[in-house]
């Protein structure tokens, strides 16, 4: 998911290579053969990137939603899962919201949805505007491009592909799409880097990321969610450390070593993260499955100065964090504007979209 960076200098640097690109660079008009709409992110010019775990591909869709919002507005939609389900003619139990992102240009909220829970579930994408009005984002006769995974499962078994790579997070960064994934067979840590606009011949590359911590033992645990910050990737791993990896180290075909800068605790999975700025201070806000929403102060100096966690872990090892007590059940979050974040909050089968001031 795209998180606008707090460093505008960095953002400008990232946007310069794309300044000459139009929204539809490398796109053609048609109907994407999307089998699943999962993790999403925004590229420049209102282009929505959608991860298709089932089809083993990333789609880039020109939403045409590229005008700045007139005014920043709080968006609150109660029972969003029931409303979305009703629009697609189904029940909330048979409808799954997979991801939520904000278009940084317009402030509109996008939801990727599965209609159904079986293998033939249909992908649907919704948009909620500043007034909370919901509409379907058409996937018929749209400008789009597609990047299939370079090592997608071979098709010798026909339609049945036992091996899949679940796409856990996507981010656009500096002319590249970065994809974190998790195989349903081998235990591997891979960040895929694809050029954007996609260059057609599937020149995606994979980078294995090791984190050297834990008493000098290293493993290749998969990345669960990540953001970019100050020329590095901050990745939360399935084994729950937060790891810093310099972007310069992410070279195709190599293995690189990240630094564990925080441990996030037991019985827990990181779900989603954003980076934001308040005053002169940068923060990381992270939603977790069991440990609520955590807030960490970030600075390049802190990250570089933090000693990598390489020994037995105390509860406060690494960068300190606080848990935001008021926020419970947050499963997705994104920055709505400079001062607000939008949350997808889940509670006993009910899901709401809520806007909060950035803490």
């Amino acid at each position: 998911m795209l998180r606008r960076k707090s460093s505008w200098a960095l953002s400008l640097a990232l946007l310069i290579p794309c300044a000459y690109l139009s929204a539809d660079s490398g796109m053609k008009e048609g109907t994407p053969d999307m089998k699943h709409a999962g993790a999403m992110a925004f590229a420049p010019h209102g282009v929505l990137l959608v991860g298709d775990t089932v089809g083993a591909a990333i789609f880039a869709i020109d939403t045409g939603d590229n005008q700045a919002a007139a005014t920043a507005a709080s968006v609150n939609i109660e029972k969003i899962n029931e409303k979305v389900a009703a629009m697609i003619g189904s029940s909330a139990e048979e409808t799954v919201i997979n991801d939520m992102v904000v278009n940084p240009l317009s402030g509109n909220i996008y939801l990727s949805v599965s209609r159904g829970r079986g293998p033939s579930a249909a992908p649907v994408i919704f948009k909620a505007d500043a007034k909370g009005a919901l509409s379907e984002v058409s996937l018929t006769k749209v400008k789009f491009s597609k990047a299939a995974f370079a090592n997608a499962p071979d098709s010798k078994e026909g339609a049945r592909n036992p091996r899949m790579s679940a796409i856990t997070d996507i981010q656009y960064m500096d002319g590249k799409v970065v994809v974190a994934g998790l195989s349903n067979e081998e235990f591997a840590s891979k960040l895929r880097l694809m050029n954007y606009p996609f260059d057609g011949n599937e020149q995606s590359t994979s980078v294995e990321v090791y984190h050297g911590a834990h008493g000098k033992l290293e493993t290749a645990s998969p990345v669960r969610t990540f953001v970019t910050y100050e020329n590095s990737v901050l990745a939360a791993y399935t084994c729950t450390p937060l790891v810093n990896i310099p972007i310069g180290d992410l070279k195709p075909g190599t293995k690189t070593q990240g630094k564990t800068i925080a441990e996030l605790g037991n019985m827990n999975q990181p779900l989603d993260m954003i980076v934001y700025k308040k005053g002169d201070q940068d923060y990381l806000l992270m939603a977790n499955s069991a440990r609520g929403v955590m807030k960490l102060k970030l600075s390049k100096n802190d990250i570089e100065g933090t000693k990598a966690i390489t020994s037995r872990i105390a509860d406060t090892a690494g960068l300190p964090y606080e848990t935001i007590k008021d926020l419970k059940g947050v499963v997705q979050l994104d920055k709505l504007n400079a001062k607000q974040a939008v949350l997808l909050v889940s509670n006993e089968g009910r899901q709401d979209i809520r806007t909060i001031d950035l803490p």
Partner: protein
Amino acid sequence: MSPRKEESKPLLSPPPFAVVAFLLSVLMGSIVRGQEDRTLAKVSTQSQQVGTSAISVELRETSNLSIFAVRGLPNVDRLRTLDAEQLSKLVTIRVQPIKGDVVLPSLLGTFSFVDGELLFQSRFPLSDSVRYQVELSSQLDDPMRILPSLLFSTHPKPKLPAASVSAVYPSSDVLPENLLKFYVHFTAPMSRGEAYQRIHLMHGNNEVKSPFLALGEELWDTEQTRFTLFVHPGLVKRGVKPREDSGPPMSSGNEYSLRIDSSWQSADRQPLASTYVKKFRVVDADDQQPNPTTWKIGTPKANTTEPVTLTFDESLDHAMLNRVLVVRGPSGIRIEGDTTVEQHETRWSFKPANPWKSHDYRVEIATNLEDLAGNSLARPFETKIVDESDQNDRAKVATQIAVDFFVQ
């Protein structure tokens, strides 16, 4: 509300069928993504009169199209001038709320007029998990009269026989303490979203708390008949906080069971036929990589389709044994055939589609092939970092190895 009258006509008589088929094909051509519908012969209709007015609503369905047709509308020519939003205020079709006080948004779909009928094609075929209500504005008829809403349901899909667990891998009942994953195979496609509530690791009568990596993106194959269950890597890895706090989920010398609840629903929302329990004993952790020098190859004879076999000194990953070994013949041509994994995943065998010739062959094995604890041919699950050069050496590990054999 008018009494509900439903009539189902699986096969229409030729003239009306031709009309409906024509209408549907026109609609499909313009609305449905250019897909040809081969199920038109199964058009079914349900028709209801709106109170005492001349208006009636008919639901016409094929397996992938649902169309509500409003007939007998007065002033159709005026209605034709209205846009979709205006029409949706006169004819509103929505899911019937479970609780009466909630106003749900109307169904996504498209309006059109054909031969004096107002047609609404829903964006998706109707679901049998909800009922649908058609509300007609009084402005359509006599403004003094309140028109009742009509309720429709799609025909329930025929249920398949209840699914069951067909296998769990590793199949052995002796497993290492640092076991990394299970594969659960089902006889029919399953439903996403409830896996981690339905699978339990039991130690006697006590459930081990949160032993698995619970991911929103549940790890299924494309058919949703195989589920991959990772043990939480933070509990398997030494030195990370979850394991420091809780210890490993399984410890050597103890007996455990993996319990799969029958309440787990299949894709067509039926529970499993029965609860499945896999009992096993846990032995010491396996920190060693698989060692191909200990493997034994069984060579077939020429002009037969006997299998070539590889026998390992430990169980390897069931899914990867089925995927990452390739047999090649002269000039590197890939040999087609069937793979079998047996003897608790300690034996791989490959039966060619055509008889072997008297030639050199080889089995290529990707080095990402893992044992039960995630140690692959390329690297152990946990590696001790010695220095940077050590790191670089590991980056150079080959992506595959080969076992050559000669058929005579």
